[in-house]
C-alpha cells in the first residue's frame, strides 16, 4: 500500500517533470511558427502580394488601329474599314453543333471552309473566341443579325481592318499588310510588343518600311482570371493610340493615269518634282490588288499573280534593271562636254555603220544621218555620233558623270528594301567583278546605253530631273516627313563644272521633241504651257543578228520576249520646268512610238494639276 502510493508519487513527479519539458518545447515551436508567419506576412508581404497579383491579373491586348496613308491632297489611299466578323465562344453556346450547322447554312460556307472552322475550334480553349468569319458582306451580316434569336452565343462583331480604296494603283508604293508571321515578330521589336493573334503587319513597300510608325499601340484590357485562365471580371480598359498617319507626295490622279497608260503592258512610270524631289507618281505595271492579302490570299489568286509572265510582284520602277539605251545619251554628251572632249561644233559623219576595232557598229538608221553635230545627234538619236564621242571619252569618265547624276545607286537609300542599285560599269568594276580587262568595244556600246550598263526607271527619272533643274542635286522623297533628314547645305549642290553644258543638253532634248526630225516630234505639245523636252530610248533585249537586220521586222512580228524595251525620259514645261518623268515599257518596241505618247498625256495632266498642288503647298505654309 505504502509502496504503491510512493510509486504513485514518483510517477506523478516524473509525468509533471516531463510535462514541463514538453511545455517548453511547445513554446519554442510556437515561437517558430509565429515568426514564420511574421516573416511571410509582414516582412515579405510585398513580394507575395506582387506574386498574387501576377497570378490573378492577366492582360488582354487588342489589335491596335493602324495609321493611314494619305496622298498629297489628303485622300485616303490606305485606310481602315469596319470588317463585319462573326465570333463564337464555344463555352457560351448551349448546343454548339446545332449553332455551327445553322451558321454553315446561313453563311453558305463550303465544306472546306467549314472544316477549317471546326479545326480552329479544336485548337482553342472553350472560353476563347472562335472567329467563324472575318470579313462578311453586309448582306450576310444583316442576315445573321436577323437570325440571332436562333443563334445563342453567336456574336456579330465589327472589327477594324486595312483597306486599299484604289486597289492596284498604289500597290508598289504602299505594299500591303497581312497576318504577322514568326519572322515579323522576331525581326521587329514593336511587332513583338504589340502582337495579338490576327495582328496585320506590313509585308512589303512603305507598309513595311514604316511599320513602327504605323502600328500604333494596343488597347489593353485587364481581367481577373482564375487558376485555369478563365476571365472572372474586367478590372481596367486602357485605350491604345492609333498609328501615325503618313502623307505621301503622290498625286492619286496622276498615279491613276499612269496605271491606265500601262494597262495590259509591263513597265514603269515615275514622275518627280525637279526641285523638291517629291515623287508625284510611281507606278509599276502590271500591279495587283493588295486587298486580296489582308485576310490571307487564296491559293488560286496567289497562283494567278505568281505565274503571270508580266511579273506583277516585281516593282519594276525600283527593281527593274534595264539598259537605258538612248536615254543615256544626254549624260554621254554632257560628260563629253564637261570633260572638254567635244564642243558644240564637233561633227561626225554617219553612214549607217562604222568599223571600229574589227567590229561593225550599226546606227539605228540604215541609211545614216550624214554629218551630224551634237544637237542633231541628240535630236535624231544618231548612234554613230555617240560611238565616236564615247570612244574619245572613255568609260571611266562617262561612269563618273553618270554616277554623279544618280545612276547606279539606290535613289531612296533604305526606304524600300527591294530597291536595286543597277550598274554603271567602268574598267575597275570589270576587273573586280569579272576578272577581265575592259575592251574598247564595250565603251562604244556603253555610249548608246547598251552592254553592261543597267539602270532602274527611278534612277532615269532622277537623272532627268537633275538635268532639268539646271544640274543641281536633289533628294527624292515619297513620304512628307516633318523632319527632313537632309541638311539644307546639301540641297542644290551643283553637279556640273560649267552650267552652259547643262543648257546645251536641255536645248538638244528640246529639239528631240519639238523639232521636225526629232525622235519624239509626233508626241510634242505646241502650247508652251505644256511643252516638254525629252529623249527616247530603245533598249535591245538581245544582240541583233545580221539576218534580223536584213529582215527589218516590225515590232508586232517579233515574239514578245524578244521585242525591245521602249524608254522615254522627259521634263516640262520647257520654260520654267518643274516636273521630270521616266517611262519604261517592257518589250514595247520603240521608245518614240510606245513610250513618248504616254508622256504627252501625262504632262497634260501633271501641268493642269500643278496649280492645285501649289495651293496645297501655300496652305501648308499659311498653317505654319
Amino acid at each position, binding site marked *: 500500500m505504502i509502496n504503491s502510493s510512493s510509486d504513485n508519487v514518483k*510517477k506523478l513527479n516524473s*509525468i509533471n517533470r516531463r510535462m514541463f519539458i*514538453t511545455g517548453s518545447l511547445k513554446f519554442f515551436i510556437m515561437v517558430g511558427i509565429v515568426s514564420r508567419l511574421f516573416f511571410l506576412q509582414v516582412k515579405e508581404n510585398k513580394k507575395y502580394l506582387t506574386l498574387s497579383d501576377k497570378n*490573378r491579373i492577366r492582360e488582354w491586348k487588342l489589335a491596335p488601329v493602324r495609321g493611314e496613308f494619305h496622298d498629297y491632297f489628303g485622300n485616303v489611299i490606305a485606310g481602315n474599314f469596319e470588317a463585319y466578323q462573326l465570333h463564337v465562344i464555344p463555352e457560351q453556346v448551349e448546343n454548339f453543333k446545332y449553332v455551327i450547322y445553322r451558321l454553315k447554312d446561313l453563311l453558305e460556307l463550303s465544306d472546306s471552309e467549314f472544316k477549317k472552322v471546326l479545326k480552329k475550334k479544336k485548337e482553342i480553349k472553350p472560353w476563347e473566341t472562335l472567329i467563324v468569319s472575318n470579313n462578311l458582306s453586309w448582306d450576310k451580316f444583316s442576315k445573321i443579325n436577323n437570325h440571332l434569336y436562333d443563334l445563342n452565343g453567336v456574336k456579330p462583331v465589327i472589327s477594324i481592318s486595312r483597306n486599299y480604296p484604289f486597289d492596284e494603283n498604289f500597290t508598289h508604293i504602299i505594299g500591303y499588310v497581312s497576318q504577322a508571321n514568326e519572322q515579323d515578330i522576331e525581326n521587329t521589336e514593336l511587332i513583338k510588343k504589340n502582337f495579338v493573334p490576327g495582328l496585320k503587319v506590313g509585308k512589303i513597300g512603305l507598309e513595311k518600311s514604316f511599320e513602327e510608325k504605323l502600328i500604333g499601340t494596343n488597347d489593353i484590357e485587364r481581367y481577373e482570371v482564375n487558376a485555369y485562365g478563365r476571365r472572372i471580371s474586367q478590372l481596367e480598359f486602357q485605350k491604345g493610340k492609333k498609328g501615325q498617319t503618313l502623307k505621301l507626295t503622290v498625286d492619286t490622279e496622276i498615279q491613276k493615269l499612269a496605271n491606265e497608260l500601262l494597262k495590259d503592258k509591263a513597265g514603269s512610270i515615275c514622275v518627280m518634282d525637279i526641285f523638291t524631289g517629291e515623287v508625284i507618281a510611281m507606278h509599276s505595271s502590271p500591279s495587283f490588288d493588295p486587298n486580296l492579302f489582308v485576310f490571307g490570299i487564296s491559293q488560286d489568286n496567289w497562283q494567278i499573280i505568281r505565274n503571270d509572265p508580266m511579273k506583277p510582284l516585281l516593282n519594276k520602277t525600283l527593281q527593274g534593271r534595264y539598259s537605258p539605251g538612248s536615254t543615256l545619251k544626254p549624260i554621254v554628251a554632257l560628260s563629253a562636254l564637261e570633260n572638254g572632249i567635244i564642243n558644240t561644233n564637233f561633227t561626225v559623219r554617219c553612214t549607217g555603220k562604222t568599223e571600229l576595232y574589227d567590229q561593225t557598229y550599226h546606227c539605228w538608221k540604215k541609211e545614216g544621218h550624214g554629218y551630224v553635230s551634237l544637237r542633231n545627234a541628240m535630236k535624231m538619236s544618231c548612234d554613230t555620233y555617240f560611238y565616236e564621242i564615247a570612244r574619245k571619252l572613255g568609260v571611266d569618265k562617262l561612269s563618273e558623270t553618270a554616277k554623279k547624276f544618280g545612276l547606279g545607286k539606290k535613289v531612296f537609300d533604305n526606304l524600300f528594301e527591294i530597291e536595286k542599285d543597277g550598274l554603271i560599269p567602268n574598267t575597275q568594276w570589270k576587273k573586280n567583278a569579272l576578272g577581265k580587262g575592259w575592251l574598247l568595244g564595250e565603251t562604244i556600246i556603253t555610249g548608246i546605253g547598251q552592254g553592261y550598263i543597267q539602270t532602274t526607271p527611278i534612277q532615269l527619272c532622277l537623272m532627268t530631273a537633275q538635268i532639268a533643274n539646271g544640274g543641281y542635286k536633289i533628294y527624292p522623297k515619297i513620304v512628307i516627313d516633318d523632319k527632313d533628314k537632309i541638311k539644307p547645305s546639301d540641297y542644290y549642290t551643283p553637279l556640273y563644272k560649267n552650267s552652259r553644258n547643262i543648257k546645251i543638253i536641255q536645248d538638244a532634248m528640246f529639239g528631240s521633241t519639238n523639232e521636225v526630225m526629232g525622235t519624239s516630234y509626233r508626241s510634242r505639245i505646241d502650247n508652251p504651257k505644256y511643252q516638254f523636252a525629252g529623249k527616247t530610248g530603245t533598249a535591245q533585249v538581245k544582240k541583233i543578228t545580221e539576218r534580223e537586220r536584213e529582215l527589218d521586222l516590225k515590232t508586232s512580228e517579233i515574239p514578245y520576249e524578244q521585242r525591245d524595251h521602249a524608254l522615254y525620259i522627259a521634263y516640262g514645261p520647257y520654260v520654267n520646268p518643274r516636273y521630270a518623268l521616266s517611262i519604261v515599257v517592257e518589250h514595247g518596241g520603240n521608245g518614240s512610238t510606245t513610250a513618248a505618247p504616254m508622256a504627252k498625256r501625262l504632262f497634260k495632266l501633271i501641268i493642269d494639276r500643278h496649280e492645285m498642288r501649289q495651293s496645297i503647298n501655300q496652305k501648308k505654309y499659311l498653317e505654319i
Partner: protein
Amino acid sequence: MYQHTRLTNNNFTFFQKFRNFDYILLICILLLGFISLATMYSTDGGKILFHTKSHFIKLMVFTMMMLFISFINIKFWFSVGYLSYIVVVSLLVWTYFFGITSSGSKRWMDLYFINLQPSELMKIFIILCLAKYFHRMKLENVNSVYTILTSLIIILLPMGLVIVQPDLGTSVLIAVSGIAVLWFAGINHKYFIYTMLGFVISLPFVIAFLKPYQKLRVLTFLNPDKDPLGAGYQIIQSKIAVGSGGIFGKGFLKGTQSYLEFLPEKHTDFIFTLFSEEFGFVGSVVLLVIYIIIIYRIIAIGANSRSYFAKLFCYGFGAAIFVFITINMSMVLGLLPIVGSPLPIMSYGGSSMLATMIGFGIVMSARVHSQQLIA
C-alpha cells in the same frame, strides 16, 4: 483490491456534472467550430454549398456527441481502452481488404451514411490504449524490455496497417500520439534520444525506400521552385496566399488565391492558408491563441485529475493535438514537406473531426470526473 478513499464522489448528479464542465475549453471549441464554419463558407466562394452544409452538420452532431461523452464516467473509458484499440485495428484490417480506393490509396470504409477513415480514429484510441497500459504499471517496470516491446507493438501494428494504405502522413501522426504517451509514462529519455539519432542517421536510407511520389514531395520541399507548375505548385501557391495576406489580411471572402482556385485542397489540408490569406497575421495569431488555450486547458485538466490514466490521456492528447496543429501549419508555411495532415476541427473531413471530438469528450469527462479514482 479496490481502494475507495472517497466514497461519495462516485456518482454525480446530472446537474453536478454540468457544473463541472470546463467552460473555457467548451467556449474555445465552439469558437473554433464557428471560425471553421466561416472559413468553409469562404472556400465555397461565399455561398452555402456542399462543404459548408456538410461541415455544419458534422460540427453539430460531433459537438453533441462530445457533450454526451463528457457525461460518461472516465472509468468507462478506462475499461474500454484495449477494446476500442482492438476495434479500430480490426477496422483498419477491414479497410485493408474492403476499403474504398480513392486517389491511389485505400483509406476509407463505406458506412453508407459516412465514409469513415479508421486511421484518423487511431490517432486518439492509441492514446487511450497506451494510457490504460501504463496506468497501473510501477515506474520501475516502465523501462523493462517487456514493457517497451509491448508498447512498441501497440504502436507499430496500426502504423503498419496505415502505411500499406498507403498513408505515410497519418501513420507518422499515429506514431507521434503513441510516443507522446510513452514519453509521459516515463520511459527513459535515453531511448528517445537514441531513437531520434537513429532516425536522423537512417533518413537517407529511408528516403531511398520511399515511393516516387513521396520522394518527390521531399525534394519539392527542399526546392519548390524547381518545378513551380508541377510538384512545387501547392507549396508555392500556399506561400503566396499566406504572404499576400499581410498584417490584417485581404478580408473575409476576399482571398483571391482561394476563390480564383489557385489554392489546392483548400477545404482540407490547406484551410489555414485560406484563413491566413483572408485574416492576415493578426487573424492567424488569434487562431493560434485559441488553439493554445485549448491545449492549455487540456493540460490543466490532466494536471487536476486524480487518476493517472486521465492525466496520461490528457497530456498525451494535448501533445498530440499540438503536434497535429504544428505539422499542418509548418507544412502550409513551407517549413515541412507536404504530408497529408488535417488541421484539427478547421479542416473538412468527418473522421478527423470525429476523432478530435471524441478526444475532447474524454478530456471533458476527465474534468467532470476529475476526482474519480481508477484502481
